[in-house]
C-alpha cells in the first residue's frame, strides 16, 4: 500500500513534469484502462474507416486518384496496426480488442457510420474528417503516454498529406463542371455536421474528458478542438466557393472566432446507439472479413507448426 502511494506520487510527478509514461513504468489501473479504451477505439476507427473509402477505389474517376486513394486506405490499415501495437504495450491482446469491436462492445468513430454516396465524399472525408482527426491527433502528439504520443507523430504526418489530397479533390470539383460543383456542395452539406460531432459531446456532457485532461492524455477540451477546427475550415470552404450548411455561422469579432449553430446531439447519440445508416453493414463487413479469412489464418498457423517441427527434426537429426 505504502509502495503504491510512492508509485502514484512518482507517476503524478512525471505527469506534472511532462515526462512521458513508458510501457514498463508503473501507472494507475484506471489510466491504463482509459488509454486502452481510447487507443483501441482509435485503432478500430482506422480499420472501419477503410470501408467507406474502399467503396470508391474501383470507381475512382482517374488512375491518379485511384492510386492515391488506394495508398491512403493502405496508410489507414497501417495506422490500425500501429495503434493495435500501442494497445499491446499496455497489455491488451489484439485479438481480444478486435473481438470487442465485432461484439459491438468497443466503439469506433461515429462518422464512419455514414455512407459514401458520391465521389465528392472522398474529397470531403479527406478534407473534413481527416481534418478533424488531425486537430485531435496533433494534440495527442503531446499526450502523456510515450508510445501513443510517438504513434501520433508518425500518423499526423500521413494524415496531413491525406487531408491535402482531400482538399485538392474538393478544389478540382469546385472548379469543375456544374455537376461537379453540385457534387462538392452536396458532400459538404452531408459531412459538415458529422465532422463537428467527431470531437465528441460538449465538455459539460463528456464523461471521460476531465480525468483524461488531468492525466494529460487529452490536452484540450472537445469544445476547444471543435472551435479551432471550425475557425480553420471556414476560410477553406470560402476559398472553394462552397457554403457551409449552417445559417448561424458568423464571424465573432470579439472572440476572433466563428459562432456556429446548435449541433443535433440527438442524431449523434442515436447513431452511436447503432441507429446510423451504416452501423450494421460496417460491423458485418469486418466480421465477414474475419470469418471468410478464418481458413487462411488456420492454414498459416498449421503450416508454421509443421515447419517448426520439420526444422526441429532436421536439427535433432544433425
Amino acid at each position, binding site marked *: 500500500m505504502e509502495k503504491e502511494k510512492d508509485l502514484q506520487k512518482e507517476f503524478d510527478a512525471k505527469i506534472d513534469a511532462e515526462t512521458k509514461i513508458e510501457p514498463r513504468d508503473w501507472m494507475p489501473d484506471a489510466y491504463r484502462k482509459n488509454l486502452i479504451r481510447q487507443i483501441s477505439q482509435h485503432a478500430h476507427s482506422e*480499420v472501419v474507416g*477503410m*470501408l467507406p473509402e*474502399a467503396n470508391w*477505389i*474501383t*470507381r*475512382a*474517376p*482517374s*488512375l*491518379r*486518384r*485511384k*492510386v492515391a486513394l*488506394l*495508398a491512403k*486506405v*493502405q496508410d489507414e*490499415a*497501417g495506422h*490500425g*496496426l500501429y495503434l*493495435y501495437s500501442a494497445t499491446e504495450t499496455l497489455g491488451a491482446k489484439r485479438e481480444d480488442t478486435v473481438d470487442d469491436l465485432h461484439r459491438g462492445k468497443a466503439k469506433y468513430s461515429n462518422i464512419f457510420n455514414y455512407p459514401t454516396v458520391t*465521389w465528392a465524399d472522398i474529397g470531403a472525408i479527406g478534407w473534413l474528417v481527416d481534418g478533424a482527426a488531425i486537430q485531435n491527433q496533433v494534440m495527442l502528439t503531446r499526450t502523456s503516454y510515450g508510445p501513443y504520443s510517438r504513434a501520433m507523430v508518425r500518423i499526423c504526418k500521413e494524415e496531413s498529406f491525406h487531408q491535402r489530397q482531400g482538399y485538392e*479533390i474538393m478544389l*478540382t*470539383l469546385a472548379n*469543375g*463542371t456544374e*455537376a*461537379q460543383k453540385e457534387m462538392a456542395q452536396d458532400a459538404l452539406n452531408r459531412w459538415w455536421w458529422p465532422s463537428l460531432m467527431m470531437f465528441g459531446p460538449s465538455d459539460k456532457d463528456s464523461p471521460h474528458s476531465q480525468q483524461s485532461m488531468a492525466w494529460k492524455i487529452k490536452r484540450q477540451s472537445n469544445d476547444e478542438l471543435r472551435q479551432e477546427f471550425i475557425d480553420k475550415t471556414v476560410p477553406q470552404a470560402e476559398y472553394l466557393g462552397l457554403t457551409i450548411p449552417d445559417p448561424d455561422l458568423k464571424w465573432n469579432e470579439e472572440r476572433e472566432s466563428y459562432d456556429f449553430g446548435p449541433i443535433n446531439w440527438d442524431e449523434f447519440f442515436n447513431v452511436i446507439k447503432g441507429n446510423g445508416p451504416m452501423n450494421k453493414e460496417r460491423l458485418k*463487413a469486418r466480421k*465477414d*472479413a*474475419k470469418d*471468410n*479469412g*478464418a*481458413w*487462411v*489464418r*488456420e*492454414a*498459416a498457423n*498449421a*503450416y508454421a507448426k*509443421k515447419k517448426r517441427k520439420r526444422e526441429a527434426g532436421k536439427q535433432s537429426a544433425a
Partner: protein
Amino acid sequence: MTKQEALYKYSLRLGDSTLILGHRLSEWCGHGPKLEQDIALINIALDLLGQARSYLSYAAEVEGKGRTEDDLAYHRVERNFHNLLLTERPNDNWGNTIMRSFFFDVFHYYFLSELTKSKDEQLAAIAAKSLKEVTYHVKHNSDWVIRLGDGTEKSHKIMQDAIDELWDYTGEMFDMDEVDETLIKEGIAPDLAPIKDKWLQKVKDVFREATLEMPEVQEWHHTGGKMKGIHSEHMGYILSEMQYLPRVHPDATW
C-alpha cells in the same frame, strides 16, 4: 503491321493486364483475412496500377493522337481491351486470388527480366522499375501458395480447386502473334517460348513444396482477351464499375 502499331498494341496489352489485375486485387481492400494481408495485397495492387499507368501513358504517346492514360483506361469499350483473361477472373475467395496472382507474377517476373533488355528505352525502363516490385510479388505469393497448399486439409483443397479453375487461363500468357513477332524482330519484345519453360519449372517447384498437384499442360487453353479483345462475361461488370463516373461526366476533369 508497322513497328508503331505493334508497339502501341503491345503497350496496351501490358497496361490492360496490369490494370485489370490491379483492379481485381483492389476489390479486396478492407476485406482481407488479416490486416497485414490487406496491406500486402494493396501494396501489390498499387504496384500493378502504377505499372499500368506507365504502359498506358506510353501507349498513348506511341499512338500519337493526344490521348492520355485516362482516355485509354476510362473511354475505351470492352472489345478494345487486351488484358489476359486470367486477370479478369473473379475473386471467389482468398485462395484463388493468391493463385491467380501467383500464376501471373511468375510469368511477369521472367517476362520483365527479359524486357529490361528491350531496345525500346521506355519499355526497358518501365521493366527495370517494375522488376523490383514484381520480385517481391513472386516471393509473397509463392510463400502463400506454399503456406496454403501445405496448410490444412481445407486450405489444400481450396488451392487445388483454384488451380483447376485457373489453369486453362495460363496458356494465354505465352501466346504470340504478329504484334510480338514484329517487336521480337526489332529486339523490342522478348520471345515468350523460353519464358514459358521457366514459368513451368518455377510453378512445378512451388507446387511440389506446396504439396499441390501440377496439372498437365494441354494444347488447348482459353484465349481471346490479349489478342482479340473478346472477354469473359466478367469483364463487362468490371468496366461498368470502373468507367461509370467518367462516362457520366465525359467533359469533366478530376
